[in-house]
């Protein structure tokens, strides 16, 4: 199999039960899917569960994907609903909110050597409305276009733009200059 195969081609192969093609999609998407799931569920273990479940679910429903359609936005809509269900179930099971980490503690004169911790980023993301948070993560972590973000969230392109704009602004306010400096 060639190293770089186009996604619709891979999807077609997966629809025929090709394990290698599915492995290629898993390889391409697992890392960033984990980041997106983590931003929704808040804990590494739940993020792993969400990604695994979403991939299996996506494989089961792969025939719903129209020929020639990109896999990414569709897969992230599956992942998002899977992660939200998991989060809902977990919060019902534990009867408590997702652990909230304090965002503060950074001084304005902190330099860039003091990288943000994952907990700080997650805590800041947690303060955003869910759609806004996922829009920012899909745009800034996955590198999706607004059209792809909109497709994943099931909203208009303009709504995606607004979510990313407001989400980034809120994160900059919370996390300080690092976000702004690296936001290019």
């Amino acid at each position: 199999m060639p190293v770089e195969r186009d996604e619709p081609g891979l999807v077609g192969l997966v629809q025929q039960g090709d394990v290698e093609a599915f492995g290629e999609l898993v390889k391409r998407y697992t890392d960033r899917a984990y980041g997106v799931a983590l931003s929704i569920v808040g804990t590494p273990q739940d993020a792993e569960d969400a990604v695994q479940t979403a991939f299996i679910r996506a494989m089961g429903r792969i025939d719903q994907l129209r020929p020639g359609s990109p896999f990414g936005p569709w897969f992230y809509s599956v992942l998002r609903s899977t992660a939200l269900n998991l989060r809902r179930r977990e919060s019902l099971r534990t009867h408590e909110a997702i652990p909230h980490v304090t965002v503060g503690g950074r001084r304005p004169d902190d330099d860039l050597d003091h990288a943000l911790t994952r907990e700080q980023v997650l805590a800041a993301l947690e303060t955003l409305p869910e759609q806004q948070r996922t829009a920012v993560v899909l745009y800034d972590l996955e590198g999706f276009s607004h059209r792809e973000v909109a497709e994943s969230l099931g909203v208009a392109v303009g709504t995606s733009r607004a979510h990313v704009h407001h989400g980034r602004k809120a994160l900059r306010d919370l996390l300080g200059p690092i976000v702004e400096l690296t936001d290019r």
Partner: protein
Amino acid sequence: MHDRPRWLDILLPDEVTAARLRRAILDVAEPLLAGRRDSWWDVASDWATLLTPVAAALTLIFAGLAVRQGIRSDEAAGSLLVSADVVESLRSQTAPAGFSQNLTDDASIVFAALSEANTLHLKIEQAVDTTDVER
């Protein structure tokens, strides 16, 4: 893909976690994909093999039924012909008292037509018989 900032990369998994996650996904997916292959191709071809003789048998049965139905239709059509005697006997019947004269006239026209048709039918049959005899 646009130029994305890197500060969210902190959410990405480390290599060990990513590898473990990929392995876990594929461990679950492989048997399911194998089943998918069966359902798409192998099972379809198995069923096609199994159903071929059944389809052939059904075709034969329906073809036989269709032929029989055709023969019966011909017989039924033949029985609809009315003999000349019947037409003549009906013509001789008088209409009941109070029966509309118009209807009686219409009946006469119908009987005349039936009589003509029967005569024609008999002529054709006789002509066919004659031809058969000549041969």
